[in-house]
């Protein structure tokens, strides 16, 4: 059984490396700023004690005030997991750094999130619609769609 790491403990370790990165943290998840997301992700992957080498799920939630991008991480070696989140408040152009350089599986999932939620992943090599067709107007999983 995969052990879910305590978000508060991981947040403390992140704060040591990049102070000010963590916005909020509780038992379930760690929320970091989108500016420091790439650095935090690198830290989570390359630290031997954490070793998050596998991104199982990448999705986004629309809270109307802001978008929250959610990353579900797993370490195959240590068999533990972590939920990493980041928020973007600009509804017109929400930008989050792309994770494709760190986890290859982020490629299609970021395209899907862009397709349905309209979040732009900065640095993605091929950011275009995945499920819907080219020319579709809007991003249907947003709360203000229709």
């Amino acid at each position, binding site marked *: 059984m995969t052990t879910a790491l305590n978000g508060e403990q991981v947040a403390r370790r992140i704060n040591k490396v990049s102070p000010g990165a963590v916005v909020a943290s509780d038992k379930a998840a760690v929320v970091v700023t989108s500016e420091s997301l790439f650095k935090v992700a690198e830290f989570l992957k390359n630290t031997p004690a954490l070793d998050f080498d596998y991104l199982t799920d990448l999705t986004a939630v629309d809270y109307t005030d802001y978008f929250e991008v959610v990353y579900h991480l797993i370490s195959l070696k240590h068999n533990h997991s972590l939920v990493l989140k980041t928020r973007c408040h600009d509804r017109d152009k929400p930008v989050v750094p792309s994770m494709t350089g760190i986890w290859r599986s982020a490629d299609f999932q970021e395209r899907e999130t862009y397709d349905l939620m309209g979040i732009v992943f900065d640095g993605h090599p091929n950011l275009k619609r995945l499920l*819907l067709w080219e020319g579709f107007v809007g991003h249907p999983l947003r709360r203000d769609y*229709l």
Partner: protein
Amino acid sequence: MEIDKYSIAPANELDVAEGLRINSLMAASAHPIPDPDSWIGEELSRNVLVTTVDYVVDWARSRSLFPLMFGLACCAFEMIGMATSRFDISRFGMDIFRWSPRQADLMIVAGTLTWKMAPAVKLVYEQMAEPKWVIAMGQCTISGGPFRESYSVVPGINRIIPVDVYVPGCPPRPEGLIHGITKLHQKIVKESISKA
């Protein structure tokens, strides 16, 4: 040994008259009566059956439908169930699901059709050779079902291709689909090649 006289009943007039009738019929029936089609000739009369062209063509078409393997969503499992030995569509001459639209003449659209898939469905339908028929199976195919208001689902396959038989259900059971196929048979036998 002498036959006991009392064991044989004496012949009455009715029995004698019946025996005479049978004997005279036997004598008159020494040779077979010629068939009414003897004017056709010996060779032809054994090989010709008179009927209408429509009847034969419709009979052949309806009894040898070749369905196209075309499952879009969960309804496809009921369609596969219909093809298995329990429900056995071989009874209707529909032995094999065809993978190529060139070899099929019945398209069972089973499942939710999205707008992204719609051009492919239209293309496959156009690739099928005439005559061809379409069965819309399940609520999603018929009207979009619960996803009718959705941004990505076609609200009814009849916006893309013409439909012959609608089989409602979510999903319809294999019996329901077989019922739809028998309805299609009834439709095919009413067709006429002169009108087509």
